[in-house]
């Protein structure tokens, strides 16, 4: 099972599920990370973490730890 945190720079994927709980999960939903959303890993921060993804026409940054809650599949 692939996670959002496993994506390589320049890779595209589709969100299949969002795990985790409480505030983090809710925030991920609110920011548009819902099943079916297409995500693209734009880049990683100079120290490797957090990551920057493009989705729904905007740029979002989140940590790998948070991205690990998001399951994705290739599209």
């Amino acid at each position, binding site marked *: 099972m692939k996670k959002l945190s496993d994506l390589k720079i320049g890779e595209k994927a589709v969100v299949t599920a969002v795990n985790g709980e409480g505030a983090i999960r809710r925030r991920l939903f609110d920011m548009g990370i*819902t099943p079916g959303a297409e995500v693209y890993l734009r880049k990683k921060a100079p120290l490797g973490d957090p990551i920057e993804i493009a989705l729904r*026409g905007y740029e979002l940054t989140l940590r790998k730890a948070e991205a690990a809650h998001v399951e994705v599949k290739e599209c």
Partner: protein
Amino acid sequence: MLKFALAGNPNSGKTTLFNALTGSTAHVGNWPGVTVDKKEGVYKKGPEPVEIIDLPGIYSLSPYTPEEVITRNYLLDGEADGIINIVDATNLERNLYLTTQIMEVDIPIVVALNMADVLRKNGDSIDVKTLERRIGLPVVEISALKGDNVDLLMERALQAVKEKRAGTSILKGSIIWPAISNAEIALKLKDVPAPLFHAIKLVEKDEIEVKNHPAEAQAVQAFIKENVCKKEENGIDAEAEIADARYKYITAHFSSTLTRARKPSYDHLSKSDKADKVLTHKIWGLPIFLVVLFLIFHLTFSDDLFFIGAMSGGFGGRAETLAEHPVGYIFFGGGLNTPGMILFNLMDTLTSLVGEGLTLGLEAMKAHPGLVDFIVEGMWGGVASVLSFLPQILVLFLFFSILEDSGYMARVAFMLDRIFRRFGVSGRAFMPMIMGFGCSVPAMINTRTMSDEKEREATVRVIPFFTCGAKTPILLAVAGAFVAYFKIGNADVITYAMYLAGILAAMISLLVMRSTTKRGEVSPFIMELPTYHVPGFKNLMLHLWDKAKHFLQKAFTIILLSCIVIRLLSVFTWNWTYIGEDMDKSILASLGQFIQPLFTPLGFGSQIPQYGWVFAVAAITGLIAKEDVIATFGTLAACLGAVLSQEQLDGGVAQVAYLIEVTGITKAAVISFIIFNMLTIPCFAAVAAAKGETAKGKFKWTLLFWIATSYVVSAAVYTIGEFVWPVAIWAVAIAAAVVGIVIYNKHMNKKEARAKLLGK
């Protein structure tokens, strides 16, 4: 008066619209979450005045961060007659997600499609008529920045509030709808206002809602289990289902109203993307940030632009004083002056001209010499020594505004999060900390964008360590005097070093607090990265004007007043006899001598018999406003009869140098004095702000933290600098503290891990 609330995503231009509507000059930045409290203003261009409320930007009406709760409560309280929902047209999907939630409340709504100009510039267009029909709300295309269609928006808003509106939801048709509609009926029976909104939140198992309606919450969950889950094999997660349904609906019905000139592709790089590629580069990103930071401080404070003077072996024709060479004084120091320095010297010239003018005017009026002294040196001297730093503070502030407005600051948080996390805070803490270099008060309020309370409180505590504009004069004047009097070191280097020492103190304090009293996991870092744009000139000037106004107001009110009080206390004895220059018998002297012993371990206490109390007095007046420290020195130097030329009088350096001379304070004690003032309790305004941002009844610990930190660090600096041998004692003490904290931390980590296991 009718009330309209502005609601929308962070960074969607709410505050810009607020300013355009009300003619106000509220702070705007290209950083999600600049507005963290609600602001009020009046729109006067319509048929009747209308009150406008700017609410903090939010992505959702969920209950997780303080600003989300502020906005949610405000919208639900029924205080507003209508809502203007700002939607960033260049980021339609995510912005409309909030719209689909707001429309569930029973209030008239108008959608303001902001940044329509940017959209058109990109060649894209939105079919407003279709969007309006599908969403069921009036939609107006506007540009808040240029003021386009802003009046039309208000016209539509005034029209909309004429009729009552009941909440509508796009969730009809989703599999969760039966549960929602049942909950709505139950809440209607209880006479809950905005039942649809509350019903949906109840189905989502929203914390606040479940607490308010526990019985209904149980019924709803039972209903879902009975009726909805039967159809689904794996059970159902209402929260995910609802968020998903909202975005699906938006993609299916609203996104199609947007026509793009170019098919979106991840490979195509806009100008913003190209800039970003360099600025957050894997290798160069962090060095570029450090260079930018250095350049900002260099251009603001250095008197040797790009070190041309040092490299060319000094400039010929250097002017030391104004009288020697007026033009040279302004533009040349050891080399070419930097913009900050040129403005500093200009201001210096200006204040000394005013001082001379005052003297001439008063003498022409045949005023008593004591009165001339009192007005020119006591009052004007004190205020001028503070005023002279205004240009540099403004230049520094301008640079930070540019960085914030352009969107670079958000990237810096992105780059630094990894490092910040090591100290126990998320990259989000970066913004309030950087704002702290301007003023602690807005910086402390800005911590509201942080969701974790302990992390937030720890951040509030260390914000004063980021040397603010008012503390800058202490650094510049005392460091300048230190170099001028002891003839060692370099004022520039001392100033930089003190800034860095403040940052270091903040980081160490964070680390210690987060592993002892403020333990907890680092809060999540999920943040929008705004598109870069060139900062608007008008916007920048508004920021600057605001800052200058605030500073000037302070200089001519609270600082002027303290100068007068200090001057009076220093020329009179307890039985109100005028003593003139024999200050040791004054009221101030006896008060100062009373508290003086407190500062003995720091080097500026009882070991300075001659006038040593001036340092104690200055440190205490700093609690009113930090500018007062230097203003006090200015006033006291004049009282002591410092014979200084008019140019020397302004700027504070000569006055402090004079005080160092007459008191015989040591080098180590001077440095200790600077450090004490940087780390101790901040000014009155910042203390009030910090109290407002910390939990009730817990503020005394914050005060204690400031006193203890400043006292211990200054004592260490003084004793080591003065006698060297105490270095051994301090080393042992620090080592013991570090070991203690590490052991405690490990112990607590284990305990917490065990508790977690048991909990599961």
